């Protein structure tokens, strides 16, 4: 072995002197524009330790030998399965608009067309920020980017679309909500109680990832430490009573889209994940009782296909190692990064200029996904940056691109096709090492919460976003049709775009007034004495850090206290997070 390495080293020196250098000189370059990797690039050749088999520690080669979509790929082709209509793993299409009844009616129409799957709810910003529709902060925002939920009454109305075959013990519920996640989880539990469905049958995923809201997405309410108490309480509550519900969906995606580098994305995601694990442990849980119910939303993506594949491999290995070595997990399921997709380009890689080019870009992301353990999803549809929703044509092209990679190119017939590549193993090592160094910086500050409180992570992301912008403006990085190839010889290629009528614009116009009217009716009709006493109990419990707040939040929800009333009590007790300046 040592002899072989010596021979390679000699040959490498010879190649650099006699082939590479003259070439570089001939083109008058300061250095070679390309790189070549050899067995010498991989520090330690340790297949079992660093790569391993798909579905086995350290999971570099994948979470399993094949996923459900791969098992059913042939069936999906024969039946013409439409993932965009919802139903993959019984998860419905992500959406939400207007009032609860607007969205219920929309869902019923979709179900009648065979577009099923559980509720996968987008909430309006008012709800995400813990306000009611009659708050001054709500004006103009009610029902706009998602559905408005002021109280359990609204929640129940949406679920009128889910009964019988689609009842909540049959389909999972997904909630893209973070700061008030505890309230929404409480609503789900109370709904099950009212329907006589055992809590242990409930499935689904609340996003419940508050830390990245401070770093990137911005829908925070309470300060970081108090927010983590709410996370702890949901984590313990779900583990004890809703064991099939996922606890969270940790997102590096939002962090990267906000401007983070790939390494920051990975390191910050790991730091946040560690903070959530520690919260569960602090709540008295055994690591293997709850870690298997952690999920990851997605890491961010970019056009750099090799680096994105390396990121996925490094992330799987890194999380598995942290869980096994640091937290002493024994159950392999505790060590998995369970995420619906792997690599992708990220919506921020798409361009408004010559938008049809985004299809080519999405295919690059799809290849990266297919070669790193996921369905080769071409995402997003090319018209993503046009800000009008996705047209039927754009969605069709996206789906077909994915199908072409899956069925024609057969991209996913091999697990971790890059395993053993000198280049990819070296790049995976580099990615993991760089992320570990960044994670160490955060750990020395005291972990994710401290690195949010002192502004480190949010400011680092903003800085990176600006550095990237400067690289684009100075043409250090090229984006086709944006900062190069923009001359008069280039033409805009366009196709007709047809939009399916989704959310009725007339309903959108009146949603705010109608929602406010139904909130006023609720406040008239409910038992206000009972509401007050449930809120008082919540206030008392909030004052005792040791108590789990979920029982008192459930009582508030059941008594029809509003989401804002619940959050206002906690605002009084916990304080409010302050916006992060530059």
């Amino acid at each position: 072995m040592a002899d072989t390495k010596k021979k390679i080293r000699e040959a490498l020196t010879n190649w650099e002197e006699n082939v590479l250098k003259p070439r570089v000189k001939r083109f008058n370059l300061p250095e070679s524009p390309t790189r070549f990797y050899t067995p010498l690039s991989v520090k330690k050749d340790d297949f079992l330790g660093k790569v391993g088999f798909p579905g086995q520690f350290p999971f570099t080669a994948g979470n399993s030998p094949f996923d459900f979509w791969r098992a059913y790929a042939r069936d999906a082709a024969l039946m013409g399965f439409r993932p965009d209509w919802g139903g993959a793993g019984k998860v419905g299409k992500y959406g939400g608009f207007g009032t609860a009844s607007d969205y219920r009616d929309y869902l019923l129409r979709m179900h009648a067309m065979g577009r099923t799957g559980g509720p996968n709810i987008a909430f309006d910003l008012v709800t995400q920020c813990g306000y009611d529709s009659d708050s001054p902060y709500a004006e103009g925002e009610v029902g706009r980017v998602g559905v408005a939920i002021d109280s359990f009454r609204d929640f129940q109305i949406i679920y009128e679309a889910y009964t019988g075959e689609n009842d909540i013990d049959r389909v999972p519920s997904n909630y893209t909500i973070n700061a008030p996640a505890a309230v929404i989880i409480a609503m789900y539990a109370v709904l099950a109680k009212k329907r006589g469905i055992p809590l242990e049958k409930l499935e689904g995923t609340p996003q419940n990832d508050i830390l990245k809201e401070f770093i990137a997405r911005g829908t925070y309410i309470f300060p970081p430490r108090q927010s983590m108490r709410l996370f702890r309480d949901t984590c313990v509550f779900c583990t004890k009573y809703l064991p099939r519900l996922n606890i969270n969906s940790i997102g590096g995606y939002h962090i990267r889209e906000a401007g983070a580098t790939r390494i920051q994305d990975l390191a910050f995601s790991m730091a946040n994940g560690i903070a959530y694990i520690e919260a569960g442990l602090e709540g008295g849980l055994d690591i293997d009782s709850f870690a298997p119910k952690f999920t990851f939303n997605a890491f961010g993506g970019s056009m750099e296909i090799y680096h994105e594949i390396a990121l996925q491999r490094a992330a799987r290995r890194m999380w598995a190692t942290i869980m096994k070595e640091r937290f002493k997990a024994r159950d392999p399921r505790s060590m998995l990064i369970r995420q619906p997709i792997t690599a992708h380009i990220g919506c921020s890689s798409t361009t408004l200029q010559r938008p049809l080019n985004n299809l080519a870009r999405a295919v690059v992301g799809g290849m990266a996904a297919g070669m790193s353990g996921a369905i080769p999803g071409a995402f997003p549809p090319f018209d993503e940056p046009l800000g009008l929703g996705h047209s039927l044509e754009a969605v069709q092209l996206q789906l077909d691109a994915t199908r072409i990679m899956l069925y024609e190119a057969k991209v996913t017939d091999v697990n971790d096709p890059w395993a053993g590549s000198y280049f990819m193993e070296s790049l995976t090592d580099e990615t993991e090492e760089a992320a570990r160094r960044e994670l160490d910086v955060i750990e020395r500050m005291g972990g994710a919460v401290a690195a949010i409180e002192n502004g480190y992570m949010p400011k680092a992301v903003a800085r990176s976003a600006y550095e990237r912008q400067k690289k684009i403006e100075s043409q250090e990085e090229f984006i086709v049709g944006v900062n190069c190839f923009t001359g008069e010889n280039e033409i805009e290629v366009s196709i007709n775009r047809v939009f399916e009528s989704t959310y009725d614009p007339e309903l959108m116009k009146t949603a705010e007034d109608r929602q406010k009217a139904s909130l006023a009716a609720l406040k008239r009709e409910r038992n206000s004495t009972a509401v007050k006493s449930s809120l008082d109990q919540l206030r008392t419990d909030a004052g005792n850090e040791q108590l789990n707040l979920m029982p008192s939040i459930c009582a508030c929800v059941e008594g029809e206290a509003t989401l804002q009333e619940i959050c206002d009590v906690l605002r009084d007790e916990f304080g409010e997070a302050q916006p992060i300046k530059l």
Partner: protein
Amino acid sequence: MSQGGKIRVLIAKPGLDGHERGARVVAYGLRDAGFEVIYTGLRQTPEQIVTAAIQEDVQVIGLSILSGAHLLLTRKVIDGLRARDARDIMVLVGGIIPEADIPGMLEMGVARVFTAGTPIGDIAAFITEQLRDAGETLQAEQTE
């Protein structure tokens, strides 16, 4: 309005929208381009923005909106400036603004809408030119 010195710009995030990449990048970029930049941080009401703009004595407000609530929020900022007799402050809007909404926003009194992919240099150049033109007009009026 401040005389001489740097042009003062308030970058503001009205409403509940939390996407602040664009706002932060433009703030850094204009700062590097020699402007005095104040960034409000997330979740400011139109009233808070108008007050901040007047207190900070800025010549320009840059509103960053990606939630779809741009028409209402922009109108409220402009109405607020008018009510406080501060309509001379230039209002720019950036973010996800559908093409169809832009004419209405210009009519409302927005000086310019900058959509995704705009180089910061273009924004800086636009502000400088507009303020120079406005300064010349003002000077001409005063001479008359």
